[in-house]
């Protein structure tokens, strides 16, 4: 069968950064096509070209043998292409129904082949509920329903599972297979090789803007794909799945740096339990991991400890400086429009969230930009941040490099306490490995690290000294050796309802 989407020789540069260097991509009807590559390889850019959000510098787009022009998302939708972005595009204040109508435009509801699929997708989506009241999983499902409502036969999904719980992920993959079985085509951008093997027919691997591998998935193993992504097999001590953990370090004997006693914090968005009477002690050089389902008080706990949310009751004694590596790199971590240097100075001057600030690059409130540049260059080198220059917009860096910069800036302050919220989310294996390594070194130097990941496997394989579970806002400690089932049960049951 002819390709429904055929991208040829696509090139695209953003200033000094060359994102795509003659990339090809071929999508056939009825297939789930995994698009792989490390961060900054150009996956998202390539799909944004196909969706008309980015005009390529060179190259052409064909569909069923005909050259087509895609100048805008509007053109893409007319060509039957729908995209589900990492950042959702629904209007929070409107209802599910209104958002679908908005996406469908003047198109009348289609009672065609995917009716069954749409029905299935709409399960749990009350048309009269406002989107702001939906869970993340349902919001994402709405994005897919919207794409289908606009008549899409080609679905482009940009890391759709990064926000989903394991059960939701499995459900999504099943839905995508169903869509492909009905003749649709799916492009799945992902980092998780397990998902690729669970769902895809075909795979394309991008590396530095070029295709390194393309073909049926059956021809590949995890090792060959990793090779195509990174150009070398993975270091032996770092498993492909972070399941086989690192042995916990010896229990710390340093003094306490965090002392929480019956601390409660109201829920951040007015919904959910918030943090309920949390009691916790952490010592210097101790790594504490948190396991929890999203929205069970972990965000409130971390933001409170970082000094960004006030406690409603209880007492909290926390040694300074405390620094936060926030979950959302682009909205809380860095200022995209600021240069790398400005971002570093901002973080260092403020001394993180609570702290004394950095004396060397300021005197009485003045900034020594020459020295700031030098410091930034050192940091970029030390933390292996790939950037053409330190005066470049931070927003132009890939996610992994942004995160390394944030972490470098945080560790530069020699924090007593470091709070890391989903520090490796969306990063490729290589970048995630570097982040983990830096955090372990910080622990070894005596920093108390509180770490949370929404990926339970990552929490369990982290090699933390202690394991906390938050359920309905209540904190409970499990043995660091607890297995997946024990932790999973604890995540679903609040402390008050008996031990798991």
């Amino acid at each position, binding site marked *: 069968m002819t390709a429904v989407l055929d991208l040829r020789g696509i090139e695209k540069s953003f200033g000094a950064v060359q994102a795509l260097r003659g990339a090809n991509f071929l999508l056939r009807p009825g297939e789930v096509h995994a698009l792989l590559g490390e961060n900054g390889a150009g996956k998202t850019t390539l799909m944004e070209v196909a969706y008309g959000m980015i005009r390529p510098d060179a190259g052409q787009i064909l569909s069923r043998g005909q050259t087509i022009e895609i100048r805008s998302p509007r053109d893409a939708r007319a060509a039957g292409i729908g995209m589900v972005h990492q950042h959702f595009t629904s209007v929070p204040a409107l209802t599910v129904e209104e958002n679908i109508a908005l996406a469908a435009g003047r198109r009348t509801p289609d009672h065609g082949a995917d009716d069954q699929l749409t029905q299935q997708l709409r399960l749990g989506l009350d048309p009269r509920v406002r989107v702001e009241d939906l869970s993340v999983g349902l919001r994402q499902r709405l994005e897919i329903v919207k794409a289908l409502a606009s008549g899409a036969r080609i679905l482009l999904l940009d890391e759709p599972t990064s926000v989903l719980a394991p059960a939701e992920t499995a459900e999504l993959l099943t839905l995508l297979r169903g869509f492909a079985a009905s003749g649709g085509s799916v492009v799945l951008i992902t980092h998780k090789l397990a998902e690729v093997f669970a769902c895809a027919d075909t795979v394309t691997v991008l590396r530095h803007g070029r295709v390194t591998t393309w073909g049926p998935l059956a021809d590949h193993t995890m090792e060959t794909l990793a090779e195509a992504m990174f150009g070398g097999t993975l270091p032996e001590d770092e498993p492909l799945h972070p399941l086989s953990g690192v042995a916990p370090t010896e229990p710390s004997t340093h003094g306490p740096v965090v002392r929480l006693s019956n601390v409660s914090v109201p829920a951040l968005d007015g919904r959910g339990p918030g943090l309920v009477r949390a009691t916790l002690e952490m010592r210097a050089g101790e790594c504490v991991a948190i396991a929890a389902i999203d929205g069970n008080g972990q965000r409130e706990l971390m933001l409170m400890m970082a000094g960004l*949310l006030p406690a409603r009751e209880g007492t909290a004694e926390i040694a300074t400086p405390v620094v936060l590596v926030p979950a959302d790199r682009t*909205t809380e971590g860095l200022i995209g*429009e600021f240069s790398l240097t400005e971002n570093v100075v901002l973080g260092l001057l403020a001394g993180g969230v609570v702290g004394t600030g950095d004396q060397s690059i300021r005197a009485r409130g003045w900034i020594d930009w020459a020295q700031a540049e030098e410091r930034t260059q050192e940091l970029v080198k030390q933390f292996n941040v790939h950037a053409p220059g330190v005066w470049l917009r931070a927003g132009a860096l890939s996610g992994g490099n942004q995160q390394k910069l944030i972490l470098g800036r945080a560790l530069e302050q020699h924090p007593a306490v470091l709070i890391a919220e989903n520090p490796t989310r969306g990063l490729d294996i290589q970048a995630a490995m570097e982040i983990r390594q830096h955090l372990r070194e910080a622990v070894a130097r005596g920093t108390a690290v509180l770490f949370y990941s929404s990926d339970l496997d990552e929490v369990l394989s982290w090699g933390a000294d202690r394991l906390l579970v938050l359920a309905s806002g209540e904190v409970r400690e499990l043995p660091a050796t607890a297995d997946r089932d024990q932790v999973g049960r604890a995540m679903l049951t609040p402390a008050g309802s008996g031990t798991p």
Partner: protein
Amino acid sequence: MDPILAQGFLEASVRVATPLLLAALGEMLAERGGIINLGIEGAMLAGALGAALGASSAGVWGGVGVALLAGVLLTLVFVIVSVRFQADQIITGTAITMAAVGLTGVVYRHAFGVGGAGLTLPTFKPLVVPVLNRIPVVGPALFGQSVLVYLSWAAVPLCWLLLFKTRWGLALRAAGEDPEAAAASGVRVIGIRAAAVLLGGALAGLAGGTLVLAQVGTFAEEMTAGRGFIAIAIVVLGRWHPVGVLGAALLFGAATALQFLFQAMGLGVPYQLFLVLPYLLALVALSGGMGQARIPTALGRPLVGGQS
């Protein structure tokens, strides 16, 4: 052009541009922090009345002091409502400007009587800068101005230093680009925004005071006549940069001074046509017709979540 006419035109351009420059620099500081303050027109009017009240009892410098105070006090209302409690900035700013029109009218009539006509206040005398004023045409136009004009020039590099060379400036710009990221880096977003807006209010008050103390020597109700809004257009045209703002303010000053020039040249064009010119220019600036400017990303947007 006749050198006398040219000198007069230049002198008038600079003089007219001065209150616009002061108000626009103040607005620029607020907007760099993410706050759009439409109450600046009201703060100018309050500053003008403050200058009149101060000058009538304590001389020109008394006028300056009360003008600053009046600008800050009126802006404090905006800060409390829109920065601290994060109410809609556009509505709050508009309400404050409209309230200022009524309020200054009442205070003025109470202080100076219903007629008020013929109120004559002390004004700043031109301060001639020796040597420089002997440059032909430009010298007398630029260096025979009042001390407030020189002050407004000094404010340009001061604002530049503040924004780009101090940690305060960096934190302010961060608050204007991305308040959540700024808060996460330890910036007290609301505090720094409040400080910038209040500083802007002081400059707007001084701008109003300049109208009274360096230009007309009297007060009239609604005498600012939209200059605060022009200042907002100047900030856009000047691309949120002190030097750009200086250039844009001078351009608006020149557009206003054109009417004097054409009257002096005896052209048979109704002067009202030229009165329209600065406002037309403002529309062009606001419609973005002057090139792509990089607006502070979080302009007009309150901090979401957090307590900084």
